[in-house]
């Protein structure tokens, strides 16, 4: 005989839990209905269209897809080695005190709002890139098409650097947990066999590989959706960037820039279609990441602390 109050209480809690379905459904509903016109008129070749032309009411999102991919991938290229190196430092090499201090610093980095990263990138990093770094790159690597262009100081390179700084804490915290979770015995065994510290760390790293991969993919998910910091430093053009010195735009930044003012129904719908793509892609990427981390830790861990 279950008391009525118990049922009522459980019902309330269940209802609260059900709210998440409701919210995700609402967001998906808004995105799909909003994008419907564009999906019907342009279809999915939208993602391969190279011309984003509001004058002719003709929209192709390839420049933004490329902008997003370029900035995220370059950011990962920078953040992954640095992140894993720092994680190794924190988990294996640092003393307790040093480890605490650096971890604290990471927490602070993760707590800084993205708009603050944006203004730092615009006012501090851009002049440095414009006056020193980019001319140097043009001078020494300008034979590659990837490094040609006008040194604006803002553009793909700046956005990628800022993104890297923003996603590094994610990689560090999860990788560190993965390393700490791997059994001591692994390292002790390899040391006993005469390995150097580095070699035994590498052994631990390869054991933690799936989890670290999960961290990287989670970081990718964050980079894909990052808006404000990117909007301020990426240069906002609707052309495909051909070099890292070129300005560009990402899917998130074009929505932020053009949404309130898209005047034709197709224009709005095209922007919402981009939002829909972002929505879908981040779901897939995050699901993949969590699966990897979950699998790597035998179901004990999840990525709650790092997101």
């Amino acid at each position, binding site marked *: 005989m279950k*008391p009525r109050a118990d049922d009522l209480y459980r019902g309330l809690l269940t209802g609260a*839990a059900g709210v998440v379905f409701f919210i*995700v459904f609402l967001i998906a509903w808004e995105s799909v209905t909003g994008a419907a016109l564009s999906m019907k008129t342009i279809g999915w070749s939208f993602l391969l269209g190279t011309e984003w032309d509001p004058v002719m009411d003709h929209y192709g999102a390839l420049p933004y897809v490329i902008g997003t991919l370029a900035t995220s991938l370059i950011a990962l290229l920078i953040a992954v080695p*640095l992140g894993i190196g720092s994680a190794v*430092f924190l988990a294996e090499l640092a003393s307790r005190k040093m480890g605490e201090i650096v971890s604290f610093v990471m927490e602070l980095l993760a707590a800084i709002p993205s708009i603050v990263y944006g*203004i730092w990138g615009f006012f501090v990093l851009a002049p440095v890139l414009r006056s020193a770094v980019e001319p140097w790159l043009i001078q020494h690597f300008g034979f590659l098409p990837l490094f040609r262009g006008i040194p604006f100081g803002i553009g793909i390179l700046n956005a990628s650097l800022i993104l890297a700084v923003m996603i*590094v804490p994610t990689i560090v915290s999860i990788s560190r947990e993965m390393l700490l979770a791997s059994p001591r015995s692994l390292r002790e065994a390899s040391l006993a066999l005469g390995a150097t510290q580095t*070699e035994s760390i590498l052994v631990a790293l390869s054991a933690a590989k799936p989890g670290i991969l999960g961290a990287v993919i989670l970081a990718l998910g964050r980079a894909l*959706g990052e808006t404000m910091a990117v909007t301020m430093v990426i240069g906002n053009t609707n052309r495909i960037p051909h070099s890292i010195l070129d300005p560009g735009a990402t899917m998130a930044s074009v929505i932020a820039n053009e949404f309130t003012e898209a005047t034709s129904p197709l224009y709005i719908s095209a922007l919402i279609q981009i939002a829909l793509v972002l929505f879908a892609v981040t779901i897939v990427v995050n699901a993949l990441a969590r699966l990897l981390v979950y699998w790597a830790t035998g179901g004990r861990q999840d990525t709650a602390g790092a997101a």
Partner: protein
Amino acid sequence: MTSTRRVKNIAFIAACYLASALVVAPLLFILGHLLGKGLAGLNWEFFTHMPKPVGELGGGVANAIVGTLLIVGMAALLAVPIGVAAGVYLAEYGRGRFATLVRYTTDVLSGIPSIVVGVAAYGLVVVPMGRFSGLAGSVALAILMLPTIIRSTEEMVRLVPRSYREAALALGAPRWKTIQQIVIPAARPGIMTASMLAVARASGETAPLLFTALGNRFWSLKLDEPMATLPVFIFDYARAPYDDWNRQAWAGALVLVLLVTLLSALLRLTVRRVRAA
């Protein structure tokens, strides 16, 4: 041991130290610039006055600070009860397929970019209401806070020792009373910290506010009208071509960072007092 291996060893370890230094460095630069450029713009007027029109020096962010507190406060009022309740559900009753689905959906929700949430909030709140409003901003922020609150609550409630529950049940308390009056209070400090950290993070969000709360040059306490917020203020003033406005943007950024870290620090302090009580 061959010297190659020794060299590789030293090189790798050195690289790891270097990596950590490179990761820590940006924070030092950012904080340095924030303090350097931001402090210059901080004065009594900055905290107590409204923004001035273009061309006039001075003015402040009083309305933006209050706006941020109001919108974030409202968002917390929306997200915390629902989030805590959902988290408790998952911890106490969460063993079936429904619960797994809820967890998965919460994960999905946490990964949605804030700009997409902003677009959805525009369609769901701004357009039907016929106006931009602080409330729409609160709805967007609440959606962003929810997943973290749910997950942390579940973790914290799980940590409550089983003996608490068993003791209560043994004394004849019904299940709901056990949860409501024994388990939740025991988990409260942790829940509060984690929730408020989520709230503090959300107070720095800019993208969703662009299409919901818009902005307001005047003092407004009305949640059903556009409202000034600190992040949007920073965005607008940083892009402006006026030196004075740029300085104010840095000052605003400093205030925002202080707000976020102060909120977090205050919370940890309160939690310690509650624990001691």
